């Protein structure tokens, strides 16, 4: 122990104090820097010859609760999933309009039925006729704009995915870069701590985009995986590719097959080769990306399907005419004759029969198809849950049609034939008595405005008739709500709302009565693709009840998403609070440290001064 020794100790103390002061200064300066974690210096005594000879800073420590941090990353994904979805569904609510306002679907629809009601009491009034058409046009415009609104939200989701993927790529590459830099650094100095801060910040960003699992390794390394186990970052970062589609339409859907896919998909390319479609493998389960996928491929698609169901029901209710077959009993067989010449593509022949062995009733629907590549049709091609659906190819002319029908129903024991002209005859098996034909009918779309019956093509698909045609790309109903319009010939001559034939009297209310009755009184079946009802029990009711159900379900979904978001926000906020409490800079504490350091510095300086005095004393001897 010597004076020189004391001098060295005091100087080391001054140095450590200066460093600690610099740390306090850095902490205070970064008090509001996002992602900055409070740093503290770890001081160790330097000992020599069995006695302390000084002090030094061994490392710079980041002060945070790592358990809370990993929880925070998990909840980040959940919260941003809930937020993205709630925001989008809330925007979807604006598509449905203010409840009861003039811009809401229900009001526009009610106005249309009111106008038809007025028309049926004053069929001769030109004003009433125009009003009915105007209200119809407003209704179609409302459906068009709602459909556009939904597709634009899907477009937003697509863009959101595109942004999220590029953010994720940036975050992943930064994490990998920092990993590499940290691997080269052996000291736990302030540069290392700052890099770790940055890396945590990028992981935090990534965790908002998707659900990730972070595993810490040796030498300050971390690996990032998706919760489903796909590695995103190790030494090197994987790369995500997304091919956004510029415009969004109702029939642009995600499919596993790239040739039929109408929207973008996310492909992960590993640094070591190999790629995987993250949507197909359902690898992303939370975060902004999962929310956007859920919106683009499910929530909004369903909302569109519901609107399409409304549009199809509207058009079909006013234009579809069901004709019953005529009972015949040639020889020992019984059955029905029916004319099938008027079928448009998508129209159907319905055969009801009873299996006499089990005494059960069955229904067969024969749907006219003009594009054979759409065959065979699934049973879900019609809204009816209990029917067996066969597509009948009409493209090769009527001659082959009867044979196809005979083949389709042959397994039941029923016999189909052509009795001349375009008459289809369906008979039972006669003496065999294993099957009884209980009814044959056709459902045809009225394609002319003066066909002599009340049915008319009030609404059209652009300029084409809406017949529910089924092509290889799907049903005509997909996206119909964006194309539905009031028949142009009708707007050109509103008197056709009344005149079923050229001689119908001006005040004949038969057709207006029919229109009003169809929309308010008749019960329709809605396809289960709308998400209302199930495949076994599709939604059945009037258009009003369907609209009611649709608004109910969508409102409930938005409400639930909003509650979920609020819940997630509370969880996230409290976690964030806890994390911030441990990791954020507390200025008070830093100030207290400052005072302490000032005192320590003064003390060390005092030691220096005392040593100088003592050496002076020694020198003056």
């Amino acid at each position, binding site marked *: 122990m010597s004076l020189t020794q004391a001098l060295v100790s005091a100087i080391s103390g001054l140095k450590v104090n200066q460093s600690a002061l610099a740390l306090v200064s850095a902490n205070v300066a970064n008090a*509001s820097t996002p992602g900055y974690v409070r740093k503290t210096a770890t001081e160790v005594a330097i000992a020599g010859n069995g006695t302390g000879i000084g002090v030094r800073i061994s490392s710079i420590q980041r002060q945070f609760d790592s358990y809370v941090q990993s929880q925070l990353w998990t909840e980040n994904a959940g919260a941003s999933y809930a937020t993205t979805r709630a925001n989008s*569904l*809330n925007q979807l*609510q*604006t598509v*449905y309009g*203010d*409840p*009861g306002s003039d811009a809401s679907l*229900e*009001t526009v629809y*009610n*106005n249309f*039925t*009111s*106008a038809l*009601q*007025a028309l*049926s*009491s*004053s069929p*001769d*009034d030109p*004003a009433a006729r125009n009003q009915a058409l105007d209200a119809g046009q407003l209704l179609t415009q409302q459906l068009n704009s709602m459909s556009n609104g939904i597709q634009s939200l899907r477009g937003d989701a697509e863009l959101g995915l595109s942004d999220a993927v590029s953010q994720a790529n940036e975050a992943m590459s930064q994490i990998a870069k920092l990993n590499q830099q940290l691997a080269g650094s052996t000291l736990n100095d302030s540069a290392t701590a700052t890099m770790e801060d940055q890396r945590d910040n990028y992981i935090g960003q990534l965790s908002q985009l998707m659900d990730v699992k972070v595993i810490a390794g040796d030498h300050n390394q971390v690996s990032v995986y998706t919760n489903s186990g796909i590695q995103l970052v190790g030494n090197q970062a994987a790369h995500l590719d997304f091919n956004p589609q510029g415009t969004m339409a109702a029939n642009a859907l995600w499919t596993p097959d790239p040739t039929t896919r109408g929207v973008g998909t996310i492909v992960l390319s590993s640094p070591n080769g190999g790629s995987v479609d993250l949507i197909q493998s359902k690898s992303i389960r939370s975060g902004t990306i999962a929310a956007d996928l859920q919106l683009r491929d499910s929530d909004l698609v369903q909302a569109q399907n519901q609107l399409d169901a409304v549009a199809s029901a509207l058009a079909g209710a006013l234009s579809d005419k069901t004709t019953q077959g005529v009972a015949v009993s040639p020889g020992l067989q019984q059955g029905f004759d029916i004319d099938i010449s008027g079928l448009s593509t998508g129209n159907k022949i319905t055969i009801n029969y009873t299996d006499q062995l089990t005494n059960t009733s069955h229904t067969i629907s024969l749907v006219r198809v003009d594009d054979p590549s759409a065959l065979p049709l699934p049973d879900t091609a019609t809204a009816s849950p209990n029917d067996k659906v066969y597509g009948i190819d009409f493209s090769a002319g009527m001659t082959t049609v009867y044979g196809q029908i005979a083949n389709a129903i042959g397994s039941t024991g029923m016999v189909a034939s052509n009795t001349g002209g375009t008459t289809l005859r369906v008979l039972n098996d006669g003496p065999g008595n294993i099957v009884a034909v209980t009814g044959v009918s056709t459902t045809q779309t009225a394609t002319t405005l003066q066909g002599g019956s009340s049915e008319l093509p009030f609404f059209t698909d652009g300029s084409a008739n809406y017949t529910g045609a089924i092509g290889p790309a799907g049903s005509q109903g997909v996206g119909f709500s964006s194309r539905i319009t009031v028949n142009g010939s009708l707007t050109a001559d509103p008197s056709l709302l009344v005149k079923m034939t050229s001689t119908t*009297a*001006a*005040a*004949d*209310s038969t057709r207006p*009565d029919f229109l*009003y009755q169809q929309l*308010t*009184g008749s019960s329709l079946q809605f396809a289960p693709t709308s998400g209302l009802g199930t495949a076994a029990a599709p939604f059945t009711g009037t258009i*009003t*009840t369907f*609209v*009611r159900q649709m*608004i*109910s379900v*969508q*409102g*409930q*979904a*938005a*409400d639930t998403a909003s509650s979920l978001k609020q819940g997630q*926000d509370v969880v996230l*906020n*409290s976690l*964030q*609070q*806890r994390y*911030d*409490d441990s990791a*954020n800079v*507390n*200025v*008070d504490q830093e*100030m*207290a440290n400052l005072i302490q350091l*000032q005192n320590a510095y003064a003390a060390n300086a005092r030691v220096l001064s005392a040593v100088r005095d003592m050496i002076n004393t020694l020198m003056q001897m």
Partner: protein
Amino acid sequence: MTTSTIGGTTAANIQSLINLRSQLDDLQRQLSTGKKSTTYAGLGLGRGVTVSLNSQLSAINSFDQTISNVSTKISVAQLSLGNMFDIGNSLKTAMAQGNSGGGTLGATAVQQNANISLDEMIGDLNTQAGAGYLFSGRDTDKAPVKTYDHILNGNGSQAGLKQIISERNQADLGANGLGRLTLSSPSAGTATLTEDATTFGMKIASVTSTLSNATVSGPTGSPATMSVDFTGGNPSPGDAITMRFTMPDGSTENMTMTATTANPPGANSFTIGANASDTAANFQSGMTSALGTLAATSLTAASAVQASNEFFNADANNPPLRVDGPPFDSASGLVAGTSANSVIWYQGETGSDPARSSATARIDPSLTVNYGVRANEQGIRSLLQGVATMAAVTVPNDANTSALSSAFNQRVAPSLNGTAGGQTVSNIQTDLANAQVALNSATQRHAQQSSTLSTYLDQIQGVSNEQVGAEILTLQTRLQASMQVTAMLYQTSLVNYMPPGG
């Protein structure tokens, strides 16, 4: 719950301030709009019900509009019908007065009255309400009745009522003016009366006789013939023979010939001659005179009424029956006219269903009222026909003026109140009044329903001003308190208490 340390960044604190603020904004919006939410999501579980309620309210509203629309139409129709009823009564009175006043002046006054009435009535029938004519059935875009001038005087090549009456008059009276009857004497002492084989003129229905010594036979055969054989001896003075004739319109007229010794015999009498041949000759000449008078009075009136019948019992699908001529006075029968040569007075719709159902309004989901009227309904037609007949005929100023007026009065006056047992204008008025009653009770029902539904809707969609006001107050207090505390927290930092310069 974590407690934030003093001086730490209180993100949660700020977040809760923002939340309070947005709650306050939402409450303010609720207060100013009176609506609980701007989206269906915010309405809670009642959101589906609001759609149904709105749809029901909208339906009630449109039914009410229909009711008010239909009420107007029915009221206008009732006015017209009431007016027609008055026209019928007033013409009837005028005819009774004219008849009792007698003479040409009375007849002219009646005709003038009828002309004005016809014009007015056609105006009533061609009433429009809103977009359409009320008395056209379903063809509300066509005026139901042709104009006054066309109906009476025709339109170019289309014959009007006057021409049709005139043609029929010629056909019924015949060239000799005896109502197509032929008097002859096949042998001395015998007089024979033979009717025409055509549908025109008077037909002999029956004969009753108190002529002593004379043999009266017939009417027999077709065309019917009757004869009086005086060869058995002359009748005594005061003996009479009464012949009953059927007129073209189906009415019957009696004509009595009385034997007298006076010479000249006077009307409806014949002088008993020296022998059978003389008496028969006298009888014949007496008959000629009496038949001529009958033809000029009752037959003329009956002929005009029948022509009018044919004219008005027609529509676009069934043009009126016309006399097959010229020449008309020897015409052999009736022939269907065409719309090219005859005015079709009724232009509206002619359905086989009841006229009322030609206009139907749904005033309730399950209730409809029928309020259609066709101008060719029996009640209106018979009134119009009577008025038009009186307007079309001119009673000449001669010895028969009074009798002819009386003959018209007798035939036309009853039809002005509707035919016996048939429909009258009053019946139509009653039908429409019943519809009005249904409309009124539906309106009252709707008012009640509407009020109930609106209240329910308001409970779901609306907000109570008092409640929102109270919530705003509470929230305001909380927000102010939170802000104050947050501001205080930010001030309590050690930095503020360190002396400057260390």
